């Protein structure tokens, strides 16, 4: 219609680095996969519900298939029995991928220093961000998300960053 009459600025170009353009695109289209096992998963429900509303930050497309997700949020205690499953889920995610460890148990075993609880998921998979708290408040998880987004924007995440990581489950 009238558009035909408007002189579109076809001759304008925006110059940027490719990495930055990709980082900008990734920033608000993270698809999280929740590996929720315990109390922290209940707090994640709050993060997703109306009051805290993770969709305000462009990360609400929660996937339950690791193959469709690029952000793994491990929310809750990981036991030795759960270990191989978590590792498999992580391996099923395609690159690029990031891991947030939510809560004291996932970060370090928390106050479950005993025969059955893994003393931090970083014994078996690499972690990018740790969120403390037992459980962390929803704001804490959102803060982690914002930090991750900022780092993505500024391209801080090097794809080779976990190249030297060795999982304890690979020892067999």
């Amino acid at each position, binding site marked *: 219609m009238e558009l035909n009459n408007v002189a579109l600025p076809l001759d304008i170009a925006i110059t940027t680095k490719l990495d930055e353009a990709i980082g900008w695109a990734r920033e608000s289209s993270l698809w999280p996969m929740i590996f929720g096992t315990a109390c922290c998963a209940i707090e994640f429900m*709050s993060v997703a519900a109306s009051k805290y509303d993770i969709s305000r930050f462009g990360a609400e497309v929660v996937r339950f298939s690791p193959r469709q997700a690029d952000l793994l949020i491990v929310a809750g205690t990981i036991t030795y029995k*759960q270990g191989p*499953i978590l590792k498999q889920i992580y391996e099923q995610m395609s690159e690029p991928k990031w891991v947030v460890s939510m809560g004291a148990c996932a970060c370090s075993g928390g106050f479950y220093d005993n025969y059955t609880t893994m003393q931090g998921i970083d014994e078996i998979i690499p972690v990018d961000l740790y969120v403390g708290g037992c459980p962390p408040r929803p704001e804490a998880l959102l803060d982690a998300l914002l930090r991750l987004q900022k780092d993505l924007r500024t391209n801080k995440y090097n794809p080779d960053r976990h190249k030297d990581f060795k999982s304890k489950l690979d020892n067999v």
Partner: protein
Amino acid sequence: MSEILTVPHAKLHAFIQNKYADGFIYLLDITAIDYSEYIKNQEEEFALVYIIRHQNFKEHIVIKTYLNTLLSDSVSYLFKGANWLEREVFDQYGIVFKNHPNLRRILNHKEFVGHPLRKSYPITKGQFLYETDDLMDEMNNRLLSKDVVCKLESGNFSECNKDLMFLNLGPSHPASHGTIRTYVALDGETIECAVSEIGYLHRGFEKSCENHTYNQIVPYTDRLNYCSAISNNIAFVKTVEDMLGVEISKRAQAIRVMLLELSRIEDHVVCLAAVLVDMGGLTNYWYMYNPREDIYDLLSKLTGARLTNSYMRVGGMTNDLYEGFEDDLKEVIKKVQYGVQETLSLIKHNRIFHERTQNVGVISAEDALSYAMTGPNLRACGVTFDMRKDAPYYGYEKYAFDVVVGSVGDVYDRVMVRFGEIDESIKIIEQVMQNLPEGEVNIQDASITLPKKEAVYTTIEGAMNQFKLVFEGVKVPMGEHYGSIEATNGELGFFIVSDGSGTPYKVKVKAPSFTAMSAYPEMIEGAQLADAILTLGSLNIIAGEMDR
């Protein structure tokens, strides 16, 4: 202290059978005690403990037998619930049950070596698992028992005449609550056989209790049923108070009743929200979850934490209600009522909801009792067992409220019983707040509760008292006791063995979700796959409590 019936091991079986004939048909728990480090010499190193409730629900018995060999007869032919309970004793203590249908580990993984609740097992000795159990042998036995396949002379299994597909539901599955694995054999959409594997959230609660003082255990109890932390706190400290032989003040009792009912609401709304999401009714999730946020706000103001409150202490609670609590509570109740009303207006006359839930996931009252299901799940079958009526505590007998029961025991009944209980809990809360007694919330006993802060800072006695209580813990007299309350998922009990020190010698949780989960595989066999998801949601299995 509970009265313990000590029976010689040779006579145990006949004794349990006699008691069963007398009406003790509701098996609450089976556990063992390792006496090897006990302060007082016992007859034998290991003892088995059976806790059984009478069918009138008013009384229970605790039966103990000393074992000279680590071998005992299974009672799983009498009580269906014994199957999993005996597996747990085998897993944790290494006691073998003869004639058990499927004696294998349940909480710990298949590569685990040793029995962690024995005193000789070091608490921090972890063992990595490298490969998850494929559950195929258990599934084959199950298929065999249902005549879907038969065993050939070569020892292999025959080809099945049906085209079965094997599928894992969980443990990483949105509807499996994160940690429950059910392995199903499907014929089309119909589940022919199912076996469940639990223990993915076994966090060693019971072992951790053995090296913490009683008050230090309160935060651990928060994380049993994390949807309603305060009710676990109360169940635990009440058991300890019973062992101490003390009664808390009238005001503390009333506050505990009020918070128990608030926890019940908090738990039911999240269960209902989740089960409706599983059904595809996402809108209800927002209606039901928002009031929960309001309860969080109220509890944060009162206890300092949203979810894991750790509000109770042996002998009382951390602090009294704050000024203006009552007004805040009234606002929260209004929001809960609004959320419930909106949700009901969406589902009450909704044909999809009715057809998806009615006559789905049915369990009969007899089976539910045999599995020792409890709480709303049992009441949905029409059994009127509610500890608040049958064995009242904290003055529940003086509050007017109804026990909500179902008639069929299907998903619909379980959902509707929970809706009904929210209304009844609100009634109780209103009655409590109308007549809230004045006075202290803590027992005035220097050997149980901490002194006032003023005294700690200004007097040597106060400082000493605080120091001793914090470091040594509340000293509980030697003995064994089972105490329980009607928590949100049903009868939540603690069996505690004390050696007279400030740290329990042994703690065993009688977890309502554990018994409910043991009934689950049988409930879904013959059902459609999609109905299995709803059945699981409606049982409200909380993994923290089930796996401990």
